[in-house]
């Protein structure tokens, strides 16, 4: 096993004064209403209630990465062009870079960090490992979050339908054939 990046930075911290991965914890919101220009949003992320006070222009992607320390969701373009930032909002897949956090009041958000059951990987995560559905892995969080929904979508059956349904997720490493195999495995297990 390679040292995980988390562990590795834990070790590196000793020599280089505290490099860490997680962003600062969200401070509890004050009871008074948000100051001018900011909004309060209460929503659920991976089953946990989150209250954020933020600039209404902040995307869900930035809120996840910069405010909630959930950096598993990746920013490949920030413009809705690559799919690396795919998450689920109320059970539908969305591009978090095109979603304003302020619109999520009362919604449920699931990210790549929220689909495994402890040490037990989600079947789609397992299938990506079994079929080596990635190289660099930068697209993988988004691919898996998309694939989880594609596996659930019963009307998506043939290879061509899966391709169509996955066409919003770019993989520059070109792991597409293996991604397709992984989704087929997960679909077979799901039936």
């Amino acid at each position, binding site marked *: 096993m*390679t*040292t995980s*990046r*988390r562990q590795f*930075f834990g070790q590196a911290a000793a*020599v*280089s*004064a*505290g*490099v*860490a*991965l*997680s*962003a*600062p914890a969200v401070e509890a919101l004050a009871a008074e209403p948000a100051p001018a220009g900011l909004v309060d949003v209460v929503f659920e992320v991976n089953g946990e209630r989150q209250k954020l006070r933020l600039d209404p222009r902040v995307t869900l992607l930035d809120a996840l*990465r910069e405010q909630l*320390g*959930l*950096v*598993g969701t*990746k*920013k*490949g*373009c*920030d*413009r809705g*062009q*690559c799919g*690396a930032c795919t998450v689920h909002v109320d059970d539908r897949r969305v591009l978090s870079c095109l979603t304003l956090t302020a619109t999520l009041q009362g919604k449920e958000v699931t990210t*790549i*960090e929220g689909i*495994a059951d402890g040490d037990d*990987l989600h079947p789609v*995560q397992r299938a*990506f*490992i079994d079929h*080596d559905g*990635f*190289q*660099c*892995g*930068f*697209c*993988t969080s988004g691919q898996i979050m998309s694939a989880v929904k594609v596996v659930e979508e019963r009307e998506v059956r043939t290879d*061509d339908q899966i*391709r*169509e349904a996955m*066409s*919003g*997720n*770019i*993989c*520059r*490493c*070109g*792991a*597409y*054939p*293996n991604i*397709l195999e992984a989704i087929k495995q997960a679909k077979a297990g799901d039936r």
Partner: protein
Amino acid sequence: MTLTPAELTSAVSGGIGTSPQRPDGNLKVRGEFAYASDLWHEDMIWGATLRSPHPYARITSVDITEALKVPGVYAVLTADDVPGRNLYGLEHKDQPVLAVDVVRYQGEPIALVGADHPETALRAMKKIVVTYEVLEPVVDMETAVDDTPLHPGGNLVRHVPIRRGSQDVTAEVVVTGRYEVGMQDQAFLGPESGLAVPASDGSVDLYIATQWLHVDRDQIAAALGLPQEQVRLTLSGVGGAFGGREDLSMQVHACLLALHTGKPVKMVYNREESFYGHVHRHPAVLYYEHGADHTGKLVYVRTRMYLDGGAYASSTPAVVANAATLGVGPYEVDNVTVDAYGVYTNNPPCGAMRGFGAVQAGFAYESQMDKLAEALGMSPVDVRVRNAMTEGSVMPTGQVVDSAAPVAQLLKLVQDKPLPAGTSSDIRELPGGVSNTTHGEGVVRRVGYAVGIKNICFSEGYDDYSTARVRVSMVNGSLSAAVHTAACEVGQGLVTIMQQIVRTELGIERVTVLPMDTTIGNGGSTSASRQTYVTGGAVKAACALVRDKLAGRTDIGDEVIDETTEWRHRATEAIDPVTGQGNAHVQYGFAAHRAVVDVDVDLGLVRVVALDCAQDVGKALNPQAVVGQIQGGSAQGLGLAVMEEIQTSGGKVRNPSFTDYLIPTVLDMPPMSIDVLELADPHAPYGIRGVGEPPTISSTPAIVAAIRAATGLALTRVPVRPEHLTGT
């Protein structure tokens, strides 16, 4: 007793020749693998880069006064703040860390801002006042050498001539052509990012996504005016590379800001900045003349090629040498004339991308082979097989190919594969897809072939090596190994390969891969398809030292066996500057493709229906990773064939986004049937042959050949876009 690797392969699982799970796989599927852009440090500030809007201009003044007043700004730095040498570069030190007096490409860094928030940095950048005297840019690679000199030595970066055999022989059948290759981008999905952490003694730690830690370090130290040991690099998670991380991007910038402010500094490029922030694949113009006898045997090949290096040299000299030495392709030709020119222009700087010079030449010579086949009335495969190189063939450089070169076999393998079922009536399987542009009308299906050659490892006498350390100790009552190198994992799976080698060599199943950093010696570059060869060789050699000390023991008590060694491949030679003769390359790799395309000839839409490949890899240390490399390389070749190009006008980039720079999606990527040959190279560790690049070379011309066959058009330029097919 000495255990041999063969005996041990069967003793532990996950050794070479198998496809064990990647050690980073679990983290990657859980979103827990920390890429450079995920790094965070308490107390860190953000760096941003002010870039030139002009491809060529004189800087008459830079005023940072107002920018410094923005609350939250810690520093605004210009060239005056670079304490060491303000010039760097992989081969020529010609590129400023921050521009002085002149900018030579759009996007050239001029100033840096360090601020408490990325938006503060942006606001401050807008307050930096730069005045320019805009100059007429040099943009034409064919005339650049005679145009305004952009550097003190003029605009010729390198001319590589090759003269072999007769220079004025004639032939019965002659075909000529002029070919163009557009500027391709690596477009790795994880944009450039790094975190620099200053230490109290004036040294700095940099966590960075790169392809070569030590050469980064050396260039950073020179620019900072620090001894090398005061600059420490650690590889962070890398979101793809493909050559685009061989040159420096923000490495020096982040360190400068960190040392200047005393704060940890994070820099992350957004997608648009990434297009300006790294070198691209050289666009090229290539003139070819092929002469053959009536049997199709090549008599001569003559070529003159231009490769546009853009504003700075980067790796242009080596790219030009590759294009030249591999310029006739995997064919036997006795009489060769090559003149390859790499030039400076005011276009974006170009350097390494997967295939490195061999891609540009490959598109041109394979197009020529098809033209020759047509002129002779031969099939494209037959004319290639007629001239195919084999082991013992002589390169245009005079170098004898001294291991397997199964060119004809690879072509026959792809030719003999079953063809896909006929054109479908399902719109999803037709060009245009669910845009519903056709139900089959106007669609023509054709087949194209190509084969390519790539040099593996660094060439022309470069003293290349890698360093590996293997440590063995007892953990929970059994032997456990750790392997440490500075060789960069960029997604290709080097971490898996290193584990596999240690398992096979030592019979120890539990192998930890330590973080890659500069506390160990140079691991060399993750490029030229060389890491499995060179770092793999180093790990194997370190294991041999450990094995001697282990002496067959399975319990070593409290002892720790810790061995570090450097490993080199056999030496190469410089090529003669007049004749281009010399044993320039370590090894050659070959791949062949057969493409099947459906073309909607009315609308100019192309769908690649199948893209089959055969490649010799010497020995597949990890068969699954080998196939992954072939798929990925083929996909990037497909991109160059039909969609990928950075379009410039007057030196300005017109499409720096994924909306306008298109990358193949899963819809564009056809099923691939792949044959992997394992013809061992006796000179290489385990007989391996570098894998990553060869498939990128032949997939482009195979696809274009099929489109030509479908349309009857000459198609001398890639990427082929719909308007090239419809003439509109």
